């Protein structure tokens, strides 16, 4: 009797555990399998624009035929034409530099919020998140307005006599950095704030008691304890910035090509779905390392604070 109840309960439990896997299978693994398959296909002037097409209704012979026609041509092209390598490197550079800037700006903000009076903190956090209430696209377009030749930035700088003739901000790496840092700042600030806010302030008193002045207490206690938050913020910014498309497309020049733009061109302009898919798969392979790192950090974090 009790055994049946127990097994029923464990079935219920198993179903609950299964849910996230089901979610991952439907919304991540299945689309990825499709992209992977397309990356192994060849372009064709057809609908859809590639061959072979997977058809479940066909027989065993056709299925074997299907696998025989898969090719690595897409990947070979990525390897042979330097434009793809340059795009990857450009993305790496933009993501690396902007993540570093984000860390430099985001840390003091997160620290400041965590050290503010308790009652004020929710308001400050809300102010950090507030820009999300406006559409991302509109905010990037607003930056075009600010950065253009007769825009707000040039206007202010000229009135302050810092520059004497309007500078060309748009269509440059600077504009991309400004746009990315602005857009991703909350993703850096929030995890940093979360770790810093959790930190027990008596630890700083203990450090002072044992002879550490404030600055040294920061480097020896606060900093190391906030590293998990800094790592989370870094990866949370770095990974999506690698694949960023909208910001470089709107603010960057035609000469800077991030991998997202190259992918877009292959997909919509050249209608070369296999190469576009191969780029996507290669990007994922490149990002797997930092993603796994992030996962490990998160697990370690959970274990430490358990």
């Amino acid at each position, binding site marked *: 009797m009790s055994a049946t109840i127990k097994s029923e309960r464990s079935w219920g439990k198993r179903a609950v555990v299964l849910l996230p896997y089901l979610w991952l299978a439907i919304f991540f693994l299945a689309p990825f399998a499709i992209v992977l398959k397309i990356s192994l296909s060849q372009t064709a002037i057809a609908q859809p624009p590639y061959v072979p097409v997977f058809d479940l209704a066909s027989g065993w012979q056709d299925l074997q035929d299907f696998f025989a026609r898969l090719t690595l041509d897409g990947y070979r092209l990525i390897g042979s034409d330097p434009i793809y390598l340059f795009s990857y490197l450009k993305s790496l550079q933009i993501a690396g530099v902007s993540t570093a800037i984000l860390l430099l700006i985001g840390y003091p903000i997160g620290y400041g919020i965590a050290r503010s009076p308790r009652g004020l903190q929710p308001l400050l956090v809300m102010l950090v998140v507030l820009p999300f209430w406006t559409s991302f696209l509109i905010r990037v377009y607003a930056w075009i307005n600010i950065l253009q030749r007769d825009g707000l930035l040039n206007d202010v700088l000229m009135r302050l006599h810092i520059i004497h003739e309007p500078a060309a901000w748009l269509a440059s790496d600077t504009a991309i950095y400004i746009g990315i840092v602005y857009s991703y700042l909350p993703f850096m600030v929030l995890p940093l704030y979360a770790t810093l806010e959790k930190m027990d302030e*008596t630890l700083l008193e203990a450090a002072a*008691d044992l002879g550490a002045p404030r600055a040294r207490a920061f480097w*020896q206690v606060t900093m190391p304890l906030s590293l998990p938050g800094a790592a989370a913020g870094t990866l949370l910014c770095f990974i999506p910035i690698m694949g960023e498309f909208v910001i470089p497309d709107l603010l960057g020049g035609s000469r800077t090509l991030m991998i997202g733009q190259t992918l877009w061109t292959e997909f919509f302009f050249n209608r070369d779905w296999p190469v576009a898919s191969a780029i996507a798969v290669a990007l994922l392979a490149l990002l797997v390392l930092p993603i796994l790192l992030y996962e490990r950090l998160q697990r370690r974090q959970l274990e430490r604070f358990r």
Partner: protein
Amino acid sequence: MADGGGTRGHEESGQPALVRFEQVSKRFGDVAAVDALTLDIRQGEFFALLGPSGCGKTTLLRLLAGFEAPNEGRILLDGDDIGGVPPHHRPVNMMFQSYALFPHLTVEGNVGFGLRQEKVGRRERRERVAEMLALVKLQGFGKRRVGQLSGGERQRVALARSLIKRPRVLLLDEPLAALDKKLRAETQFELMELQRNLGTTFVIVTHDQEEAMIVSDRIAVMNQGRLVQVAEPAEIYERPNSRWAADFLGEVTLIEGYLNEDGTLATRLGPLRVGAGTAKTDDKVWLALRPEKLRMSAERPAADGLNTAAGIVFEVGYRGDLSLYKVQLADRSLMKVALANTSARGKAQFAVKDVVWLSWPRDTGVLLTD
């Protein structure tokens, strides 16, 4: 009222004070956490600050550590005003109630943290850390992470960390509050032994009366930011200077009365014989009686010269080693009596509704005027 006992004790010892609070006040908003308090702590003593929560004892400790600055008054260490000295330059160390161990460091890193701040070389640091860990019986724990330790082990790491710089005064903020009762009792004796061996001045903050009496040489009982009484534990227990002190430290029954011309006390229980006190005739006074000093019998005691009162057992609290009785007297007041359960069967000697006689000699109890 404040520190009669303390001043007397000070004169007896003749030692200069290591720590002196002079008219120290600390206010948080409108609330005075410490109120014009004057107190001496001697070199080498185990000193307890005891009081209910919110009495200002922790604030006093934090003032000494330098985490708070007094609004008024001076704090002297070895005769020097340490008011302007920041916490990281004070030769005092604190063991925190939460232990405040650094979670990112190993046991060794935690214990050696203070030495690292003084730029003590790696080799000497390692030696002194090992020495400290041996002192708190944690040999071989150096490489462990703080998260892997039990509560008792953390407590020891915190103790080792606060002692490694050989502070002039060690401040202990409720150091045993997080331990279970058995471990707490053991650790109390270890703390006393440690203090005796090191000769360091220990100042402990606790709300646990028993703990304060067990570990310390002297106790300062505090209430609402002021000192109620400063004296040795037995002195405070046997000769409390006020009803508040008597009631706060241990169990007590208070009997209100007036002194007669013949030296007896006029109470609702009739005239009681009391020891000579400082109270004057016609003053309102209270007789404080400790429960374990009363005798209880089924028959009226025959001996002359005893105070006696008849009553009915109202409640019995069995505690194993002894039983606490509440006995209702003729005037409906309750008197607390403690009797050791000495019989072989170990059961309480009296039961509820038993008619009993209470008796106590003339000089049992204290007359309190406050």
